[in-house]
């Protein structure tokens, strides 16, 4: 098993004819993702060459899902239109299948657009949104797997560690750390660092706890907001699998946005110190340095009798 996305999940790409969408669709197909097509309004009927194969393009998400019975859609649409693309996918999945996973990679979507889009998705209980402004989700397979997003596929291997992170490249660092102790990943989920997003830490922790393939969890947070604290408190009551946690931004000054729109300490709240303290209170194994995630994970696995 894995979380939300199976190795052979059928995936469509919104914005597949754009530069970003086409580039990453090609990389996803190369990795082995079951990429069944894409959509760009006005370009229905065309095909797109992904190197390993050609896939069809539809005008609407509805047409794409009706034809392919897709399980997931990944959004590479530019910021002004991305929230609309999310809502289009949510509506289509909901009406045709009653379920579906939407992964939004786009960075720079206006916050009020996301407030609207997240409310729209939340009104449709079968629909899950991951992101925006995230690397996506990957479930490595025995051969290939499902890579839905922009992460480098080759650094991953199938295994038993679930990874959830607000950050992109720091997630890759965490993946490399699990590999350094010869552990692969069940599913890696980038939830993104925007102030308003879809799936949060708690959703991911609950899914990893329920997933039989996942035996331990790595959780990477960032300064800003209180999602890490809430997740830690929730994990204390609900997660029995060992968790290793890291929070980026211990040295960030207050009031300054550190790259991600959500990574800002405001009103003295959302500091790394508070988040690390919350992790420790919840019995989460803390890595203060991302280069130590592997070693800390090894300790966590040993103490849980998993090594």
């Amino acid at each position, binding site marked *: 098993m894995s979380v939300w996305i199976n190795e052979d999940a059928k995936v469509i790409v919104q914005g597949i004819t754009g530069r970003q969408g086409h580039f990453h669709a090609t990389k996803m197909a190369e990795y082995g993702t079951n990429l069944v097509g894409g959509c760009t309004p006005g370009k229905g009927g065309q095909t797109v060459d992904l190197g390993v194969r050609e896939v069809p393009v539809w005008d609407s998400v509805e047409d794409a899902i009706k034809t392919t019975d897709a399980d997931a859609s990944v959004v590479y649409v530019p910021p002004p239109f991305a929230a609309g693309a999310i809502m289009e996918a949510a509506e289509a999945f909901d009406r045709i299948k009653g379920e579906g996973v939407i992964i939004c990679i786009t960075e720079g979507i*206006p916050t009020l657009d996301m407030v609207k889009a997240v409310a729209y998705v939340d009104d449709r209980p079968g629909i899950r949104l991951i992101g925006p402004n995230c690397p996506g989700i990957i479930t490595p397979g025995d051969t290939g797997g499902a890579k839905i997003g*922009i992460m*480098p596929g080759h650094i991953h291997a199938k295994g038993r560690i679930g990874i959830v992170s607000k950050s992109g490249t720091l997630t890759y660092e965490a993946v490399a750390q699990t590999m350094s102790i010869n552990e692969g990943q069940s599913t890696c989920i980038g939830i993104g*660092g925007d102030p308003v997003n879809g799936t949060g830490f708690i959703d991911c922790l609950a899914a990893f706890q329920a997933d039989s393939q996942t035996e331990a969890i790595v959780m990477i947070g960032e300064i800003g907001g209180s*999602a890490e604290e809430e997740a830690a408190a929730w994990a204390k009551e609900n997660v029995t699998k060992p968790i290793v946690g890291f929070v*980026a931004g211990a040295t960030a000054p207050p009031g300054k946005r550190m790259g991600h729109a959500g990574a800002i300490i405001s009103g003295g709240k959302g500091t790394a110190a508070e988040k690390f303290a919350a992790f420790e209170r919840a019995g989460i194994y803390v890595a203060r340095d991302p280069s130590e995630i592997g070693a800390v994970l090894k300790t966590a696995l040993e103490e849980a009798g998993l090594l």
Partner: protein
Amino acid sequence: MNIHEYQGKQLFRDAGVPVLDGVHCTTVEEALAAYDNLGSKVVAVKSQIHAGGRGKGNLYCPETGELQMEGGVKIAFSREEVETYATNILGHILITKQTGEEGKLVHNLYVESGCDIAHEYYLAMLVDREAKSILIMASTEGGMDIEEVAESNPEAIHKIWIDPNSGLLPFQSRNLGTALGLEGGALKSFTKMLSKLHSVFIANDCAMVEINPLVKTGDDGIIALDAKVGFDSNAEFRHKDWDDMRDMGEEDEAEIRASEAGLSYVKLDGNIGCLVNGAGLAMATMDVIKLKGGDPANFLDVGGGANEEQVTTAFSIILEDPNVKGILVNIFGGIMRCDIIARGVIAAVENLGLEVPLVVRLAGTNVDEGKAILAESTLNIHPADDLASGAQRIVELIGGDQ
């Protein structure tokens, strides 16, 4: 992106949120003319900077550093007082608890009519990331620092959340007003004001609107006596008017140049420059430098697909900071290939004539090619295999200078 009070009040005025008459001035003469034209015996003379705490801040002479005047917001009862206050404010440095020690040079002034204040309130509208909706916070403790109120008297803060599907509903405004103790005409004025303020928030893609104080007048009017407005930079593409409101004097010049080059840069106080791909990894790199006993000079995220030119710009921005004694490059190549970064680093070092130690850590896509390129170069570049050893190395290399 933040704007000045006088600009925020213009947005309010245009949308029908009650504000007092006022004039934006940049000279003492304009301030006097404003006083003459406002026809109000009592006026407020207000320093315009983006930081808060202006009223309790102090003004200093930029040349001598001597105290010029206590208080960045003054009530003037005569033409002479307007002249004195305007003279003491314009061209002087205002230091408040939000500006940091260096303060802000004041170029703008707002002269505003006086009003009859019966009570002061606090009101803020912002996006609540946990509730994923707009939150309105109000308190009867106007004029006070809201964090202090939250600390000392949390039950004095009243909150409502706006359902994105239905918008601000009349009962919510009524309940919030009642919680503040408003009734009759004042309650009506409040609910009307709140609905218009909500429209301002949505129409302008605000990240934050704070009115401290919001006042009730003797005749049951509700007036925004302050206006602290911040916009969501992600929405800039649909607000052509923001360019005119932007005050470059309030922003760091290097940060502006970085953002124009597609880089995200924040200057810090340390001496180790950092160049990293990805915001989370950039923060983590700073953290590890600190753990190893060093001090980061900056946050710099070159993003997911930086080219040679961007890497050169990044280096030049880092090197402009005279505090920088060494640089750590930390790249985890995903989409970005390490060989491209390695070439960019070499080109930048050659172009800029780097004189401080440079440690480069590469990982991920095409890492072997990247490392080979660095190894072949005759430049003084120290390679590192992982973040911890890279940070350790740069801290050691600059150790002699500390």
